[in-house]
């Protein structure tokens, strides 16, 4: 094994161009352990991917901090990886601190974190520490998910590097990454992450964390090269998510026998249980007991704007489609209003709700003024496509509104336009309406795709689609009814046909969502992933709230069936019917908000185990509650958002 020649004369150029001793940190007495070893490599990795990403000649300068020179590292065209030896990690935090020093990180951000799992009974107790940063994956889901294209996977070293200057702080990459590698800095309003210390690699040095390791647990090199003194390059480790999700470039050694069950000390209700094949799989750890609670206050989270965003846009889409499609179908019950004064107001409401939704999703960003970057990654990111769909929906709905104005009865009572103009307007309105419908469906589909995240098993189920669609149909039809029934009352016309269709639609929406929830809960109950833990929290911490929501859903459904039946039998009329309708509407609204809030707070990602304080959600919340988080040295931003 030969160490890289770190003082190659051609590196003088780098040393000349750099502005300080902090980057490309070369020193005369560099110890051997910090130097990369040039030992050749295999052609392909264990996932079948190529280890040389391009030829050496094809690599380019990384232009780090203005340094144009290219490092002499002969492996710079190859995929590199961290190697972690869990047998050796002592949990001393040197790697994390070296990283924070190198990257000048405030205490609340860390590119690398050490957590642990423990098991056994005193004194045959074992604790296994896990030090984890970015795994610079073959399939970087962060890069794919990022709407701004802040991520780049470089051919040089295979480093996945994120540029905070491009990022607008939506945090979607922090959702999709199974390892909690991207760090959302709510104070700075942006994400940052491990950059593989590419400046060190360029001069033949291992990353700062690796060089700092005091347990000889962390190592680094070309992927699949077993480091000196190691025997394993496994892709699995208890507590580590399924490598199939992203094909991470990290390899493990863990040879000491562990107890059958390894528990987490943080508040995640997850433990890891050894299977027949020796692998550990997540299982529920009933930390919260079995009692059911309300915990209404805990329904509120930093994702509140997204609760409003999704509900508002879904309602708007539902309302639009209900009105537009019904008008096109010529449904006598609904189309009467197509030409009335109420129609433009209803479409205006659609645009307003959509606008509100988009506004909520924008203020959810760390840097809202950069919202326009949300369409930079249409090629890969469902977030982009969702946003674009919804935006186009709003635009076409607006155009549809304008184009349908001339044909409106109220306008016609003031101005009578020639038929040719009216015809043109009508066809424009029709085209725009169709396009708006198409955009709504696209937006809704990608809204759903946004939540099909393997690192968030609770969401990664078709129930997300049934809930979104159910809400779109149900809430849209409900809002249509709430608008149209009073209007019919004012005009003293019979609304029972109208109400029958709309209540039936709402009932269909509820049924769709309900079936999804039922199947989902069954799937989660028996799952061997974090989704099972989410479901456990759903039925304990939020158990009473969850029950109430389900019961209300059932009652709403029955009420709507009753309403539909009553309408069809002409038993409903006048203000009494309206009151009944409003009652159900309030209940439906409550169910929707509660359900959506639960959807966000319940998700438990596949992230790495935390420690007792650091990366422990319960402690973080507690520290915020009691004011400890106000001290910057506690390493927590006082309030999430």
């Amino acid at each position, binding site marked *: 094994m030969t160490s890289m020649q770190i003082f190659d004369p051609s590196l003088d150029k780098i040393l000349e161009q750099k502005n300080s*001793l902090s980057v490309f940190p070369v020193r005369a007495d560099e110890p051997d352990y910090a130097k990369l070893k040039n030992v050749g490599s295999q052609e392909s990795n264990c996932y079948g991917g190529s280890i040389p990403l391009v030829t050496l000649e094809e690599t380019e300068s990384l232009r780090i901090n203005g340094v144009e020179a290219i490092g002499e590292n002969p492996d710079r065209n190859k995929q590199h990886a961290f190697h972690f030896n869990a047998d050796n990690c002592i949990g001393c*935090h040197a790697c*994390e601190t070296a990283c*924070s020093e190198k990257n000048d990180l405030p205490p609340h951000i860390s590119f690398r974190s050490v957590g642990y799992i423990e098991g056994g009974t005193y004194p045959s107790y074992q604790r296994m*520490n896990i030090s984890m940063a970015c795994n610079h994956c073959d399939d970087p889901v962060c890069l794919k998910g990022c709407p701004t294209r802040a991520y780049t996977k*470089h051919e040089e070293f295979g480093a996945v*590097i994120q540029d905070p200057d491009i990022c607008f702080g939506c945090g979607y990459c922090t959702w999709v990454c199974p390892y909690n590698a991207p760090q959302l800095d709510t104070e700075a309003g942006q994400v940052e992450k491990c950059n593989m210390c590419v400046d060190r690699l360029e001069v033949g040095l291992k990353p700062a964390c690796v060089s700092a390791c005091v347990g000889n647990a962390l190592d680094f090199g070309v992927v699949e090269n077993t480091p000196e003194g190691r025997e394993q390059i496994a892709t699995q480790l208890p507590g580590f998510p399924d490598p199939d999700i992203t094909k991470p470039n990290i390899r493990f050694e863990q040879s000491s026998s562990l107890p059958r069950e390894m528990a987490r000390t943080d508040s995640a209700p997850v433990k890891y249980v050894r299977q027949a094949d020796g692998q550990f799989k997540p299982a529920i750890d009933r930390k919260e007991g079995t009692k059911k609670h309300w915990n209404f206050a805990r329904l509120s989270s930093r994702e509140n704007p997204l609760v409003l965003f999704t509900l508002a846009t879904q309602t708007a889409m539902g309302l639009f489609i209900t009105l537009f499609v019904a008008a096109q179908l010529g449904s006598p019950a609904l189309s009467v209003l197509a030409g009335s004064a109420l129609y433009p107001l209803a479409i205006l409401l659609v645009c307003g709700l959509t606008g509100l939704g988009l506004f909520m999703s924008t203020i959810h960003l760390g840097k809202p003024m950069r919202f326009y970057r949300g369409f930079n990654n249409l090629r890969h990111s469902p977030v982009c496509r969702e946003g674009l769909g919804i935006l186009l929906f709003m635009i076409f709905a607006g155009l549809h509104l304008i184009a349908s104005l001339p044909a409106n009865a109220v306008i016609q009572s003031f101005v009578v336009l020639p038929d040719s103009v009216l015809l043109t307007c009508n066809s424009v309105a029709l085209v725009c309406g169709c396009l708006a419908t198409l955009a709504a469906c696209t937006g809704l589909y990608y809204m759903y795709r946004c939540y099909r995240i393997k690192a968030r098993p609770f969401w990664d189920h078709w129930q997300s689609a049934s809930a979104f669609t159910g809400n779109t149909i149900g809430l849209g039809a409900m809002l249509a009814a709430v608008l149209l029934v009073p209007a019919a009352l004012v005009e003293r016309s019979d609304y029972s046909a109208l109400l029958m269709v709309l209540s039936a639609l709402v009932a269909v929406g509820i049924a769709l969502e309900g079936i999804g929830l039922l199947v989902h809960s069954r799937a989660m109950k028996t799952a061997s992933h974090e989704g099972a833990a989410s479901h456990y929290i759903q039925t304990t911490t939020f158990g009473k709230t969850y029950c109430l929501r389900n019961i209300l859903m059932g009652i709403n459904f029955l009420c709507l069936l009753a309403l539909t039946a009553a309408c069809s039998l002409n038993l409903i009329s006048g203000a009494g019917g309206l009151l009944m309708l409003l009652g159900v509407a309030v209940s439906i609204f409550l169910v929707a908000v509660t359900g959506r809030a639960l959807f966000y707070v319940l998700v438990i990602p596949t992230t790495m185990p935390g420690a007792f304080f650091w990366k422990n959600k319960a402690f973080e919340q507690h520290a915020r509650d009691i004011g400890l988080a106000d001290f910057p040295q506690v390493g927590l931003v006082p309030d999430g958002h």
Partner: protein
Amino acid sequence: MLFGRRKKNPIKLADKGVMEWKYATCSYCSVGCSIEIGLNSEGRAVTTRGVGGADVNRGKLCIKGLSEAQIFEASGRGSEPLIRGKIFEPWQSCAWDEALDKTADEFKRIQEKYGRDAVAVVSTGQIMTEEFYTLGKLVRGVIGTNNYDGNTTLCMASAVSGYKRSFGSDGPPGCYDDFEHTECLLAFGSNLPEQHPIIYWRLKEALDKRKFPVIVVDPRVTMFAQFADIHLAITPGTDLVLLNALAHVILDEGLQDVEYLEQHCNGFAQMRELVQLYNPVYAAKICGIDEDTIRNVARLYAKADSAMSIWTMGINQSTHGSDGVCAINNLNLITGNMGKPGGTSLSITGQCNAMGTREWSSCSGLPGYRQLENENHRKEVAAVWGVDPALFPSERGLAQTDIFPAIEAGEIKALWLVATNPMTSMANSPRIRKTLEKLEFCVVQDSYQDAESVQYAHVFLPGAVWAEKEGCFTNTERRVNITRASQPPFAQSKPDGWIFTQLARRWQRGRAMQWAETPEQTFEEMKRLSCADGVNSPGANGSPRMLDISGMTYDKIERARGLQWPFRESDAQQGKVVGTARLYSDGEFQFPDGKARLLALPYIENNELPCGDFPFWLNSGRVVEHFHTRTKTGKIGNCNKFSPTAYMEINPDAAAEQGVEHMQYVRLVSRRGDAIVLAQLTQRVPYNMVFIPFHFHECVNRLSLGLLDPHSRQPAFKQSAVRIEACDQAEAARTNAAMRTF
């Protein structure tokens, strides 16, 4: 393959803008890592890194060293001298002259009224050796009180006492290089991965090259215990019993090194007679280690060609601390493991300069391991200082842990605390609080004015910290290493050495003496005292003085990245560039006859054992991210965030029985007081024990008893009894938050 942007943006990495690196020695623990402080273009310290070519740490640093640049501008730094008449009055800022005049005047007044020894000085292990020497010169040669000690009584006194009783002198005989040679390592109450991560790494490096058995004695399953080949989960406070039993087996089976015993040891017969009582069957019942394991470990240790023992607070902080150290020395003497590569008794020290205070501060004796009891020593020092030898008492005064009871009893009226925080660090803090209230005058000299003990001060003197000044530390392996001043002292703070000399000049006697202008001049004065020459006598055994630094200079120290003493002028003249790795390699000890002493060490059960009312052992210790009373690490986010508040480890089975849940507050009650802590349920601790990190103010030491070792006067922090009470969670959370002002 996915590569994102086709036209790639340049990569921007954080640049702390280091323009220059300055050499220093880490100011946290006693490992003595060589460290470089990175200064930016404005000369501000922005980061640190380990020195690649330094033998101690070879480029590595632990979490604390890596984040150490932040201590300079940490919150709570003392910016100017403060003064007040009564402790309930608000602080007034004042000029240095006023603060120093007031301090000198009060000391003089109190000494005149109550006697010379009514003023007590408690110093530290934190300041530079040159400053310790100057403080000693001031206290012994000018102020003249005999009640002068360091806070090292809380951490290293038992090791000092044990070394003195076994070998005739203090001074750890081994070094880190011993790991590279040993064939068996026995660690007592030492959690290297948390306490001394870099020593752990040196051990790990040695083990990666060549496997040898590692045996860890600890009641907790620490990471070290977990990685050990054999973990002896001992009953707290009973190490002496285990050690006597190990000696019993070795002698019983004739595994001792007969030749070594005959040539280099006294006291074998008495020792043999005593250890005969400690057969493994009997010992197992007391120490909780089964008899087979005791025999197995004894044989393993004795049969190894070289075997070494290391220990830390598990031994030192107990009622048999000094005896425990002597018993470890016994074990190594009877197996002939002394002063040879891989065979030694190596105490792993605590503070960065605990060794410096032991060597040069004059607190338990006189500079250079001299004794007050020795008339020649008194004369030698008096001659160099230019004072009347009659000024020196002929025996040592009160230890730190006896000074507080003397304040309580009204014998001591004034206290000077130098870089130590007894309100958090002393056992039984309710008693210390009451004690400090009684003082007529208290001056606290510290870099941090939010250290809890400042509450009881009448004068606060802001000290410069670490590389705001120049000077040396000595580490665990006797390596003298230097810190260069990398920046000026913070605000109006001053180097401790400056404060000592300025104060000295406020006495007639002080003005008559010579005071060095620079630390380097002080170092030269210490060098003169360190060797045997016309003025100084040789060591007790007739050989040259052991603690000899006469061959060192600041530049040589920096070039060598630290030099281990003895490093004599003759060594330097012969062109040697490294010091002496091991003591006693020639089998010559520091008693007049040159032989080591084997001691008969009976075990007397005097700990506060768990009982019906207080059913849990209270154990305490440290965590890697914090240093001592958190005055530094409590302000550095990248340290503090890993344990920002107090907690206890409790066994889940015991917790279930007590109704204690994970992440909930409990109130612990002992015979001294109570404390609120968060419960962390873990099988790392036994059923009948709770473990609490000691760093937090108003926490473990509200509960601890701290019974004193009869020889070293070191408190047994780790052995007392508590019970667990439920408490209102919201109220406890409020209390906990209120306790954490940093």
